[in-house]
């Protein structure tokens, strides 16, 4: 590799464009402006040739094996109405006005229920529809929405036929929603998490404390208006000592700390 100089003499590469240009011109009937002055017959012949090529291509397409689903463009699922879902019908039959809407998306049924009747619905689903397992409980924040800021999502499972059902309850900020810890014990930590990260208050919860952040943390991180980069935690832990928004503590506070030592 030390020999940098090329030993073979550079081959004289013929300029391809110049040679090709007269050739293509020669193919045409006249050397001057060949494309504009085609006779009708030539035009027809060209069109026929193009048609034949297209037909050939179409034939090849037909002959080719059908495309596998992974070779084609993916088609995302569409939302459908799920009012005919047996569980939606059962809940409607038991309690009137409880199913505000029923949708199916990607095979999962979502029932929207009023937040003030959530425990009633959950109890019915557990007792009569055999939804013994609460798989997941979480929340979604829609700060701009008028009917209420948070979606609280319950995701239930039935062992007998392995069916899953999603409940959605809309709650406004600072409006408590009843806790379902009395229905499923597993909801305990899930509700604590939703309280911690979204600030949703679950009424009747046995110990609604922060779980992932610490006691005294200021704010609810998964709200959309909470900055991704975080907040000054000094201010969060000692709001009386540190000014909100960060910065050094005022001098008198420092002196007090020093004095205490």
């Amino acid at each position: 590799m030390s020999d940098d100089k090329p030993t073979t003499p550079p081959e004289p590469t013929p300029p391809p464009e110049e040679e090709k240009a007269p050739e293509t011109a020669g193919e045409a009937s006249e050397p001057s402006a060949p494309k504009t002055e085609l006779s009708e017959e030539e035009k027809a012949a060209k069109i026929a040739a193009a048609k034949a090529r297209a037909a050939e291509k179409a034939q090849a397409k037909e002959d080719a094996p059908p495309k596998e689903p992974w070779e084609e463009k993916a088609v995302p699922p569409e939302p459908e109405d799920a009012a005919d879902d047996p569980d939606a019908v059962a809940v409607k039959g038991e309690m009137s006005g409880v199913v505000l809407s029923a949708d199916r998306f990607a095979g999962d049924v979502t029932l929207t229920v009023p937040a003030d009747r959530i425990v009633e619905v959950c109890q019915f689903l557990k007792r009569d529809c055999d939804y013994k397992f609460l798989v997941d409980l979480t929340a979604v924040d829609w700060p701009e929405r008028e009917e209420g800021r948070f979606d609280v999502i319950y995701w239930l499972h039935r062992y007998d036929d392995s069916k899953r059902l999603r409940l959605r309850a809309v709650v406004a900020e600072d409006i408590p929603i009843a806790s379902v810890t009395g229905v499923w014990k597993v909801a305990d930590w899930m509700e604590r998490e939703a309280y911690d990260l979204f600030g949703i208050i679950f009424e009747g919860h046995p110990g609604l404390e922060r779980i992932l952040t610490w006691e005294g943390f200021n704010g609810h991180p998964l709200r959309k208006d909470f900055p991704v980069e975080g907040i000054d935690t000094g201010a969060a832990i000692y709001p009386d000592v540190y000014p909100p928004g960060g910065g050094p503590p005022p001098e008198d506070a420092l002196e007090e700390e020093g004095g205490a030592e």
Partner: protein
Amino acid sequence: MNGPQDSLFDVEEMEISFGPQHPATHGVLRVQMKLDGEKIMEAKPIIGYLHRGTEKLFETMDFPACIPHTDRMDYVAAATNNQGFCVTMEKLLGITIPPRAAYIRMILAEMQRLASHLVWLATHAVDIGAITPFFYTFRERDAILDLFEEYCGARLTLNTMKIGGVPFELPDGWVDRCSALVDGFGAHIDEYENLLTENRIWKKRTVGVGVVSAEDAVEWGLTGPPLRGSGVKWDIRKVFPYDRYDEIDFEIPIGTKGDTYDRYLVRIEEMRQSVRIIRQCLDRLPDGPYMAKVSKVLRAKEGMVYGSVEAPKGELGYFIVTTEKATAPYRCHVRPPSFINLQMLPAMVEGHLVADLMAVIGTLDIVLGEIDR
């Protein structure tokens, strides 16, 4: 019970804090306990020391960029985390993955299950006094990690799956080396069993400790080996088969009494079943592409979708909400199996000795990276 005649010493309730810096907590778990002598009266797990805001981070990055972050949740089982996210995204976008990709995924996921169970067995045994299995299990785990490294360049944070398939073709000779490992694995599992299964000390420390009835297991939402140890035959791979698990023949092992020893037997048998699955996948590995045809920029429609996989610790679920034409999740919630399983800890240890707490934490097989997210 608290009367002075029960004990020679003063019966005084003592409050101690176990962890967060303690090797037997498998991370940064803290358990605040009220003790009567050595008996646990009350235990309260305190978590959150490893909270990194992963769910918040998901909202700021486009779909493929989320996958490396899933690695860092259950960091001893990164492949199944990737798989959970990819399966959910494929459900949302309507993507069908090619069979070869599905088979490679299953091989990686089952190898990851083996690796994760080996870590569990090693640490669980060390926690309750048996140090020897550690050296045996980490030998095999290293062989698995070597294969991972050869495939994707990483040993722990694999980032080894993509939305629509897997990122790479298998390297030359990889299948043979994996075959050799899998064929010898049954003998290795026998070795661990020789060390523990009929070991008198092991049985004394595990039989009858942390008993969970089937009803309690369902009520507390346990999934994975803790649920199966209580005798509930339930596995996502069978119930909601993802990738191509419906084409594979395997059994779901279950326990009968629901104690720590049963959960140990269930996990050991699960390793044998994983070996069986990998064997079948390697034999049937189809040809063809390893990625589906997906657009370079993934755009979702408005919708909410939940997808789950059977991670080594239980049901790992992803709940993804998207808005119209979004390139990033509007909200991505993770249902970590360890988080839900750990919730059962106080009910399992009350009335037991402090030493049994280590056995119960070990048998739940928790990973704090996943609990705190």
